[in-house]
């Protein structure tokens, strides 16, 4: 059976991983290779690496950063930011990217979607849509020029799939960094019109939000950015929480299946007697 995917979005600005709040405020987190190595070790299902400074500064993708970051990433890596030519896609594929994410290019150069899909296959092309809620419903948002496009995200998604997009990544700008949970209405509006997998993003706070989005929408994958960076084993712990209700992949000895959580999915301390016994448990590092 196909598992629901738990995805980490790593937002990079000027070579540094940042926490993004409403696409407006950015707080530094650390270096991309370290962030990816840890997410990978903690059992993330997929990583989306978005360079938000590349397009803004009219620069090509930062290939050196991508190839350094991908070295210890043994899960699928989608790279976005600064892609405006087919050569950029080709170079990224040689730097360790498995898929590319088109955002601004999808708005202004839709032909790039089809040309990339023809050469690299449609499974390689993710179209990323930033959506905002307006008085006349959801609209596509152009974050570079900070303007609202007159297309609804579902129309836009549909057009992209016709051009060859293999996945749709839908980001709620309003929920970005808000910890208010995913926007089901927005996500469902996309899932209803496209047959390709939908990845949703924006608003996740803990495992509960993942459970709810998988129960209330047909999304194949859900992504979080910020909260994965801020505590040890964040991915394993989150997935352990999700797995109580939804099928996700959790193949590690550190699966937290015997732990208790509080209402915010924070780990509870184990009983002293259990901790004492654990003193004598030796866990060998797995050698492959």
């Amino acid at each position, binding site marked *: 059976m196909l598992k629901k995917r738990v995805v980490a979005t790593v937002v990079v600005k000027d070579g540094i991983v940042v926490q993004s709040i409403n696409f407006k405020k950015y707080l530094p987190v650390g270096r991309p290779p370290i962030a990816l190595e840890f997410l990978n070790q903690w059992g993330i299902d997929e990583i989306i690496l978005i360079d938000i400074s590349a397009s803004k500064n009219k620069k090509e993708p930062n290939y050196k950063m991508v190839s350094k970051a991908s070295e210890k990433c043994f899960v699928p890596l989608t790279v976005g930011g600064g892609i405006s030519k087919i050569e950029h896609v080709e170079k990224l594929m040689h730097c360790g990217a498995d898929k590319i994410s088109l955002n601004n290019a999808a708005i202004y150069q839709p032909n790039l979607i089809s040309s990339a899909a023809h050469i690299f*296959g449609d499974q390689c092309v993710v179209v990323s849509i930033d959506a905002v809620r307006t008085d006349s419903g959801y609209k596509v948002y152009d974050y570079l020029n900070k303007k609202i496009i007159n297309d609804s995200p579902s129309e836009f998604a549909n057009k992209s799939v016709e051009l060859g997009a293999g996945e749709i990544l839908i980001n709620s700008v309003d929920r970005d960094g808000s910890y208010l949970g995913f926007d089901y209405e927005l996500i469902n509006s996309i899932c209803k019109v496209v047959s390709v997998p939908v990845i949703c993003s924006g608003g996740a706070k803990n495992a509960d939000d993942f459970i709810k989005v998988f129960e209330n929408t047909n999304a194949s994958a859900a992504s979080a950015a910020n909260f994965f960076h801020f505590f040890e084993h964040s991915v394993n712990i989150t997935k352990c929480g999700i797995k109580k209700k939804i099928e996700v992949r959790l193949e590690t000895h550190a699966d937290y299946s015997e732990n208790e959580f509080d209402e915010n999915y924070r780990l509870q301390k184990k009983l002293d007697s259990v901790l004492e016994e654990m003193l004598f448990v030796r866990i060998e590092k797995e050698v492959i």
Partner: protein
Amino acid sequence: MKNPRIVIIDYGVGNTYSVSNAIDSLGYRRLRISDKEEEIDNADVLILPGVGAFKACVNNLKERNLVSILNKQVLIKKKPILGICVGMQLLASFSEENGVHEGLGWIPGNVQKLQLPEQFAIPHVGWNNVVMKNNCPIFNHNTPDSNFYFDHSYFFNCDEKYVVGYCNYGFKVTAAVQHENIFGVQFHPEKSQTSGLKLFRGFLNSI
């Protein structure tokens, strides 16, 4: 064989860097990414990666004269080869992806579009557990039913006797094939975390 010479076939469209990273992390140092006959001839084992549309892949193989080079290495010299994703589909007789295109024809069968019930999204993207069959050595180091990362819209439809692993996605999707020294996996071991690294170890230890 200890420390085999490994060549990852470079034909322009594969994610060669990812595959090389994964194998390198297992400690294999005699590892090359190449399309040169001399280096391919010197290799003990070959890997045919793949991210791309079938037609583009076949055309690139032909342009670099790799079809005849590989035929010699694999069919006559019997070198073990592992095809990954489109690299596995290339083993087939032909593919129906955007028109009919001839493949390498090493394992009889054809590559067809996934025909799925409505609730199943296409492409088939994500982690799916693989049921392993016939004790294929590539799975020697994996626990049964391990999850691997899939990302494809077409599948390899071939005789049951070549199928050494399948997964369920609306129907039994061919996940791994083997015919003598020729191996292929539909999923991406280089992107399947520890399960994938174990598969590479299984394959490279079996030669």
